[in-house]
């Protein structure tokens, strides 16, 4: 059965396709995940609706092909996150820095996720998002609220960001690329 397509396989491997690096964007609903994805892909701010399901986009970044998955953050969808864990190089965890009420929930979800076996080797980038808003927690405050210092055996970083203004995103991604490119190539 595979025979039929083998020509395309070779052809594809040689000329077209590059290995894609899988990155997940996770976080509670409304944190700005979808906005970040499309800001990275198109350089624009898109109007979003709650993501029932997921978005996935491929983008070239510094000669790497990134396959970025933006999963819905609603309570009802969070259980399905784990469907997407396998082969994941990195997780971008997005936090709404103005949503102090739910930061504990965010923390809980983060640590629950990191316990999963399939994610043991994944790097973690946290965006303390919505920094453009008054009263937003700083990256350090978010880091503390998320207990990031507790994380062992994992490359992680937290970056203050504003998806709307486009601030912090490339900075975060640059760090992430540095961490994962050696493993992936």
């Amino acid at each position: 059965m595979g025979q039929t397509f083998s020509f395309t396989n070779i052809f594809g491997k040689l000329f077209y396709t590059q290995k894609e690096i899988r990155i997940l964007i996770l976080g509670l609903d409304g944190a700005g995940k979808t906005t970040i994805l499309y800001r990275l892909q198109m350089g624009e701010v898109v109007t979003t609706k709650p993501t029932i399901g997921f978005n996935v986009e491929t983008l070239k970044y510094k000669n790497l092909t990134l396959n970025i998955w933006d999963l819905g953050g609603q309570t009802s969808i969070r259980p399905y996150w784990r469907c997407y864990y396998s082969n994941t190089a990195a997780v971008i965890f997005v936090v709404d820095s103005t949503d102090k009420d739910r930061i504990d929930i965010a923390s809980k979800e983060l640590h629950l996720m990191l316990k999963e076996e399939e994610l043991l080797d994944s790097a973690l980038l946290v965006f303390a998002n919505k920094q453009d808003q008054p009263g937003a927690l700083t990256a350090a405050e978010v880091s503390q609220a998320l207990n990031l210092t507790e994380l062992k055996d994992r490359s992680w970083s937290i970056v203050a960001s504003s998806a709307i203004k486009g601030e912090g995103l490339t900075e975060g991604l640059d760090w992430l690329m540095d961490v994962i490119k050696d493993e992936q190539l």
Partner: protein
Amino acid sequence: MSLEKKIRNFLQGPRKGEAYELKSGLVSQYKHERKDAIQRVIQAMTLGKDVSSLFPDVLKNIATYDLEQKKLVYLYLMNYAKTHPELCILAVNTFVQDTEDPNPLIRALAIRTMGCIRVNKMVDYMEIPLQRTLKDENPYVRKTAAICVAKLFDLNPQVCIEFGFLDDLKNLVNDGNPMVISNALNSLYEINDLNKSKDLDILIINYDLIKNLLLVLNECTEWGRITVLKCLNDYNCNSAEEANLIIQRVIPQLQHINPAIVLSSIKTILKHNQLLQKASQDANLKKLSSPLISLISNPIPEAQYVGLKNIRIILEKYPDILSKELRVFFIKYSDPLYLKLEKLDIMIRLSNENNFNLLLNELKEYSMEFEPSLIKKSIKSIGLIAIKLPTSIIKCINLIIELIDNRGGELIINESINCLTTILRKYPGKNDLITLILPIISNNFKIDEATHESIMSYIWLMGEYPNYFTGLTKILSSLWENNFNEFNNEIKLIWLNSIIKINLNKNLNNEIYSNLLQKTLNEITENCDDIDLRDKAYIYWRLLSVNDEQLTDKIILHKLPPIDSVIKNFSPQILNELINELGTLSTIYGKPSSTFIEAPSNEIKQVTEEKEIKDENLLDFDDEEEEGGTTTKNENILDELSDLFTNNSKSETDDILNLFNEMNITQPSQPSQTSSQSSQPSNSKNIDDLLDLF
């Protein structure tokens, strides 16, 4: 099982083998490998392999810019959504996005797939996409969305109504695009069938709609035309002008190559034709004959069969419609048997004074064929013609004699005996016929080769016309000695009747007869396991011992009236229902759809102007039933009865019932003259016999 556990189970999946390979392909880090895997999954799916375990991983590939891949994933989703209902939610985001895609193909594909995912959870997310696509600028998208409304209604009528989809759908019936109109109609019809609530207006057919439909009819696709024609048929015209307009617009459809369209058109024309003047009616009916014939020129035998089944019903209502077309129905050597038998049925219906010679010649040839059921039916048909057309009778009898002489054999002889006996039941006591027929029968009847039916015919004839048998005592004694014990109860019953009649015959005085009668009464009252038969013997016995000649003559020797036509007909009410269901499965079953599917709780509503005349409300059978009085009801009950018996697994009863269904000739001693009663089983027959006698 908790959701988390379920998800973990999905994720475990297979560890090796083809499924594992596919699974890793689906989540590969190379785009082409993923597509390759999807193609292989679909291939496996179409081969009937269960690849539902790959659901979560296939689903991940739904968000893609590759249209081909998207189509495949959608296909997969439709197929397996039911196996993983809780995971379907993950596709929602993509569906919603796709219904906004610049490409109308993708928009239509998305809403179609969403509608086909019959998962309750999906309903919550259909609102925006369905609303959007129902109002899409592209007709292809709108027509797809229209169908989706019915699917949603099936899943959740409330949501469908509350979100206004039903109203949107109703508006689409006035769309500018023919495909959208016909799909919207179709969807409304489907909703009407699904609907359980009494006070929901679904499809309102008014003259404005009809006018619009008449305009688009010619531009619709084949399926679309059938739907539009259905709607045209469901409309009750308020005037002859309306009816005429519809008919004139539908007539061109009769030329269509698709038999379903031809049949729908015929149905529609037949319905509205009834409102016209007699002369126009006849003119329109004439126009139907060549389309009807086109149905049996179809190269596919199954399609011809459907055509024949429909023609058979139309012929019953309009017997003259094909009166000059007998030749078209002649059997072709290459026809499959079921077509041959069906054609025979039609030919009998078409037989008349002018064409029976031609037809008898054909029947002669068919009787020389090799398929037993064709031979049997051909011989039966000769009898049917003799009964239908008195002028043909001598020709028919001669043809049978010729067949016996030239070919003979058990099959032909037995069938001929039955057939001749039936002819005598139509023309009882006609000396010339009796002297012609009885010698053939007594010369050819061989008890060892006889069938139940021919034995019954033979014994009945002996009771009815004993004087025409030579050596009757010998024949009877031999049957008593050698065969009586093997007779079934039906034959025994006829034997009992005949032996009594012979004893009461004043021209026959012989001890042997009274001995046989005594033995018969003893045997049946003592050893027979059939209560009715036993009781009948007792009653006769009593009757004979009363010794009241007048009474016995009146009861036992009472002459039966001649039988009527034995061609099977529907009751008028059933016939009307079937005419209105032409082109549907009902015509194949020969039963109105209400007998095998649940009727929708709502009749299609129609807004009509005040001048609506009740009598012309041809669709409304409920009314008719009330007005129709007892006869219709009776026939209904009988119909149900015979339905019951058709399911009877006892093959013997079955065979007999089938015989009766085809032709009511096989039980000559049956004193009851109503042909419809003959489809009752022997037990109740006996009771009937008694009741009739007293």
